[in-house]
C-alpha cells in the first residue's frame, strides 16, 4: 500500500500545478520617448498624390485675411485654438514662416514658445521652471543636460488640446500579480 502511495507521488496523480507561461517578448516599444503630438510637423495639404507645406504655396500668393472664406484646399487644417481663428493671429501674412505677436513684433519659428507665452503667461513661467512639459535627460545639471520639450512638440498650435490616444494594454489580472486564475 505504501509502495502504491510512493508510486502515486512519483506519477503526480493529484493537484493542479499549472506551470507559468513563458514570458512573451513585447520588445522595448515603450522605451521610446515621443511626445503626445506625433509627428511634430506643421499641417500639410495633400493634393494629387503630393504633400505640401503651407509655405510652398503661400510664398507665391499671399493671404488675404479680409476674405475670411475657407477654401476647399484647407479642409484638412483644423483650427481650434480659442479665439485665434485667423492665420495672422500668429503668422506674418506675407511670410508665413515668421511668427508675429499681437503688437506686430516678429518672432522666429525656432522660438515659438515666446509667442505662446504672450497669452499663456503662467504656463510659460511653469515651462521655464521646468515643471510644465516633459524633460528628458538629467535632473542633475552637473551630470548632463535636461532637454525640455517646447510647446509645439506636445501641442499642435492649430489645435492645442491633446488628442485622444489608444492606451497601452491593461494589466492582466488573471495572469498578473501572482494570480493564477483564482481571482
Amino acid at each position, binding site marked *: 500500500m*505504501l509502495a502504491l502511495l510512493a508510486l502515486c507521488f512519483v506519477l503526480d496523480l493529484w493537484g493542479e500545478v499549472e506551470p507559468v507561461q513563458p514570458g512573451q517578448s513585447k520588445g522595448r516599444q515603450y522605451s521610446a520617448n515621443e511626445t503626445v503630438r506625433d509627428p511634430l510637423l506643421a499641417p500639410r495639404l495633400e493634393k494629387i498624390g503630393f504633400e505640401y507645406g503651407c509655405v510652398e504655396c503661400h510664398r507665391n500668393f499671399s493671404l488675404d485675411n479680409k476674405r475670411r472664406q475657407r477654401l476647399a484646399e484647407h479642409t484638412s487644417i483644423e483650427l481650434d485654438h480659442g479665439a485665434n481663428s485667423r492665420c495672422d493671429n500668429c503668422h506674418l501674412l506675407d511670410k508665413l514662416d515668421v511668427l508675429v505677436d499681437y503688437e506686430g513684433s516678429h518672432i522666429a519659428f525656432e522660438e515659438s514658445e515666446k509667442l505662446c507665452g504672450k497669452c499663456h503667461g503662467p504656463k510659460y513661467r511653469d515651462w521655464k521652471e521646468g515643471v510644465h512639459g516633459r524633460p*528628458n535627460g538629467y535632473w542633475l545639471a552637473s551630470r548632463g543636460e535636461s532637454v525640455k520639450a517646447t510647446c509645439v512638440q506636445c501641442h499642435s498650435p492649430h489645435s492645442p488640446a491633446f488628442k485622444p490616444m489608444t492606451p497601452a494594454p491593461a494589466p492582466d489580472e488573471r495572469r498578473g500579480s501572482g494570480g493564477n486564475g483564482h481571482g
Partner: protein
Amino acid sequence: MADLITTRQTADGPDMNRRDFLKKTPVAVAWVAALAGALSPLRNLGDTISAEEFLQSHYKELSPDDMKRVLARITDEVEREYRVRPHLRDVTPMDGVQFAMALNLTRCIGCRKCVHACVEENNQSRSPEIQYIRVLEMPQGTMDMERGNHDYDVEQVPRDGHFYMPVQCQQCENPPCVKVCPVEATWQEPDGIVAVDYNWCIGCRYCEAACPYWARRFNFSKPELPAEDVNPDMAYLSNRPRPKGVVEKCTFCLQRTREGRYPACLEVCPTGSRVFGNVLDPDSSISYILKNKRVFVLKEELGTRPRFYYFFDS
C-alpha cells in the same frame, strides 16, 4: 479497546530477533520509499543555491570587498541565464539629495505608457506580469478608489467624465512596510528611496499587507523575462533580475536617478505629467511645484508622509 495508547508489550524488550527483523525491514523500506516519493517533485527544483549565496550577509553588513564578490557572482549568473553581460553596480545615494515626485492629474490622460516603460526599464517579470504602476480611471467627482477602474480597455483615452490617477510606491517618509519587515530586508535610504535587499527578503509578505498603496509585488514564481528584453543597465538594489519568492517595488529607477537621470516613467510620459527632482535643492523643479502648486498626497490620514505628490492645475 481501551488500550490504544497504553503500552503492554514491554516483555519483548529492546533486542530484536531475526524474525522481527525480516518482518519489519520491508515495512521500513516501504516507508522510506513513500517518503522519497513524496519528495520526488524536488527533482525539478533546478538550480540550487550556492553556499556563498545562502550565507550572504545583509546589504548593510557587506564590506566593499564582499559587495565586489557579490556583484561579480550576480553578473555571471545574469550572463549565464540571459546571455547579456549586465552593467551591474551598487549605486549609492548622493549627499544632499532627497527625491520626490509630483504628478499632474490634469495632464495625465491614462495612456499607461509609464506602466510599460517601467517594466522595460526595471526588468520585471513578464509572466506572471509584474507592474509597479497602476493607473486608475476615476469618475470625476470622487477620490474613492473603490470607484476607480483598473483594467479599462478602451479605444481611446481620456474618456469624458474621467480623470486618471497613476499610483506607485509613494516612497513614504514614514513607511509602514519598513516598520513591519521582520528582518530589515527593506529600509529607507538617505535619499528617501525605500529599497529591498532581494538576497535578504524571506518572502513573508508582511510588507505587502502593510502597504496602504498596494505598491509592493511578490514573485509568486520564478520571474519570466525574455532574454532579448533584458535591460543590462542594472543596480543591486533595483532592477537586477529578481529571484523567486521575494518582494520588489518601485525604486524611483535608482539605477538612473542616482546618476542624475530622470526615472523611466517620467521620460516616457507623452503629456509631461510627472515632475521629479531633489527637494533639498530650493531651485529644483520639484521644489517649485511644492511651493507653487496646491499639492496633496494619498491617504494623508495614515501619517505615511508620501514623497509622491498629486496636483491639479488648469
